[in-house]
C-alpha cells in the first residue's frame, strides 16, 4: 500500500501520547461544589497505561525495531514532568500541547491527528484509557480520524516489516490481529512491566528537548460537546456486621442477603 511504504519502516518513528493524572494510589476526592475532583495539592503521575505504552515503545527501540520515540501530551504546563518521565524511560523527545482546558477525548484525538500528520510516525502506541476520565476512547478515535487500523487492549506487540501483529485482551480470552502500518495500538496491563527510570537516565532526560506548543499550532482546540453538570460522591458503603463463624456467614448469605 502506498501510504505504508511512504512511512519508512527502517527509520521507524513511534508516537506515544501520555497523560498526567491523579496518582493511582491517591483516592479521588470530589469537590464540595460538585464541579469536579479536587486536584489541588495532590500527587500527580503518568497514567499507568501510558507508562506501559512508553515502555513498549522503548523495548521496540532496544530491539532495533524503532529509531525515534516522541512522547506527546495535551495538558497544563506541569505535564512537562510527565513527558520528562517518558524521556527518562527512554523516549527521545517530547512535545507538550499546552492548555489549561481539560479537553474531551474528541478534541484530544483531533490534536493528536494533527501531530501525526506533522510527525508521520508508523505507529502510535498509547494507554487504553486514562484513569481519571475512564473514557477509553482517544486511541480508537485517533485511528478513525486517520483512517488507520487499530488494535486496542494489547498484551503483545510484534513488528515485522510493514505489519504489526497484536494480541489483544478481549472478554473471555485473547484475540490476535495483524494490522498494516501505520496503525494505532493501545496498551493493556499485561503488555509489560514498565521500568523505573535509573538516575543516570533521569539526568540524561533533562537534556532532551521538549517542544511546547499551543493547540492553535495543531488546528485549535475543538469546542466541547459535553457539559459536566455535576460530579458527586458515589453512594457510600457502610461497614456491615462481623460474623463469628463460617457457618454464621453462610446462613446470613442464604437467609438475609439471599445471594447464595
Amino acid at each position: 500500500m502506498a501510504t505504508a511504504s511512504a512511512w519508512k519502516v527502517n527509520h521507524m518513528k513511534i508516537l506515544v501520547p501520555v497523560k498526567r493524572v491523579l496518582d493511582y494510589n491517591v483516592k479521588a476526592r470530589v469537590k464540595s461544589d460538585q464541579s469536579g475532583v479536587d486536584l489541588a495539592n495532590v500527587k500527580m503521575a503518568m497514567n499507568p497505561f501510558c507508562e506501559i505504552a512508553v515502555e513498549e515503545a522503548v523495548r521496540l527501540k532496544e530491539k532495533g525495531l524503532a529509531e525515534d520515540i516522541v512522547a506527546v501530551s495535551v495538558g497544563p504546563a506541569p505535564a512537562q514532568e510527565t513527558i520528562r518521565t517518558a524521556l527518562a524511560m527512554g523516549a527521545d523527545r517530547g512535545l507538550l500541547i499546552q492548555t489549561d482546558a481539560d479537553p474531551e477525548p474528541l478534541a484530544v484525538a483531533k490534536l493528536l491527528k494533527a501531530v501525526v500528520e506533522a510527525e508521520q510516525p508508523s505507529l502510535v502506541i498509547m494507554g487504553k484509557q486514562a484513569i481519571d476520565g475512564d473514557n477509553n476512547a482517544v486511541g480508537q478515535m485517533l485511528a478513525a480520524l486517520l483512517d488507520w487500523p487499530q488494535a486496542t487492549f494489547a498484551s503483545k506487540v510484534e513488528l515485522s516489516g510493514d505489519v504489526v501483529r497484536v494480541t489483544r485482551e478481549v472478554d473471555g480470552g485473547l484475540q490476535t490481529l495483524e494490522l498494516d502500518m501505520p496503525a494505532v495500538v493501545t496498551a493493556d496491563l499485561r503488555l509489560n512491566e514498565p521500568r523505573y527510570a535509573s538516575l543516570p537516565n533521569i539526568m540524561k532526560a533533562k537534556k532532551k528537548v521538549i517542544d511546547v506548543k499551543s493547540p492553535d499550532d495543531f488546528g485549535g482546540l475543538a469546542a466541547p460537546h459535553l457539559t459536566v453538570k455535576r460530579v458527586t460522591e458515589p453512594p457510600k458503603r457502610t461497614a456491615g456486621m462481623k460474623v463469628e463463624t463460617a457457618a454464621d456467614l453462610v446462613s446470613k448469605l442464604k437467609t438475609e442477603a439471599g445471594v447464595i
Partner: protein
Amino acid sequence: MPVLVFADHDNRSLKDNTQKTVTAALALSGEVDVLVAGKGVTAVAAEAAKIAGVRKVLTAESDALGHQIAEALAACVIPLMASYDAVLVPATSVGKNFAPRVAAALDVAPISEIIEVVDPSTFVRPIYAGNALETVASVDAKKVITVRPTAFKAAAEGGAATIEAAPAGVGAPKTRFVAEELVKSDRPELAAAKIVVSGGRAMGSAEEFQKVIEPLADKLGAAVGASRAAVDAGYAPNDYQVGQTGKVVAPQLYVAVGISGAIQHLAGMKDSKVIVAINKDADAPIFQVADYGLVADYKTAVPELMAALDTVKA
C-alpha cells in the same frame, strides 16, 4: 427518536448484556431497534426479536463482522446512523473497541459506560474507577453511548420484532484476523459473573492461591479474582486483577479472602451488591466496605466455609 442497540453475542447465542442495554435504550426512547452484526447470526437475531420493547432487528453479516473487528463494526454502524439519533453499545471489550470509532466518524463525543439515563441527553457515568460519578449532558444531535451492563436490569422477553437484513459495510481492509484463544473454563467471566471470589497477598504463593481460592470459587459457581498485590507477587495471572488498573466488577456477591482493601482494589469491587471479607487483621480497610466480615485466618476459615456451604446445599 429512533435509537439503535448493538447486540452482544458470539455468533451463536445472544448475551444478556444486550437485554440490559435495551433497558437503557428504552429510557431514552420508545423506538428501539437492535443490530446483530456477525456471521451466521440467524439464531441470535431470532433471540433478539423476542426482547420486549424492540421494534425491529437488523442483521449484518461478513467474516470481519464475525470476528468483531472494530473497523468493520464501525463501517457497518456509521451509515445506519443516518436513521438513528443514538446508538447504545454494551461496554464489553467489543463495544469499547469500536464505539469511539463511530463517534469520531460522526464528529460527536462518545459517552462511555453510562450507569444511568437522566434524560435523553443527560447521563451518569463513573470516573476515577467509580470513586466519583459524573453527570454529563451532550449537545450532539446523534449520540454514541456505551452502557455498563451491570447497572441495568435485563429487558424481559415477550417481543415479536421483525427481522431484516442491513448492509455489512466495507469490512476491515487493513486488518486481518489471525487467531482467537478463548479461555476454556467452566467458570463465568470475571466481569460478568454473579459471584466473584478474590484472593490477596495473604495467600503467600501461587500454589496456595490455587488450592484455596479456586475450589471455593468452583463451589459457589464463581469467577476468580485477585488483588493487585497478589498479581504483582505472581500468585495469580494479571487478567484476574480486580481494581482501578484491572477489571471493575459489580457481582451480586463478592468474597474477598486475605485482601486488605487498598484504595485501588476497592475501586474495582465496591459496587458489588454484597461484600464478604475474610481477613485475620480486624483493622483491615476491607472491613469498612464489607457487609459481612469474618475476622479469621483464611487457612481455617475457607475450609470451614466450604463445609458450611455443603451443609446448606445438602
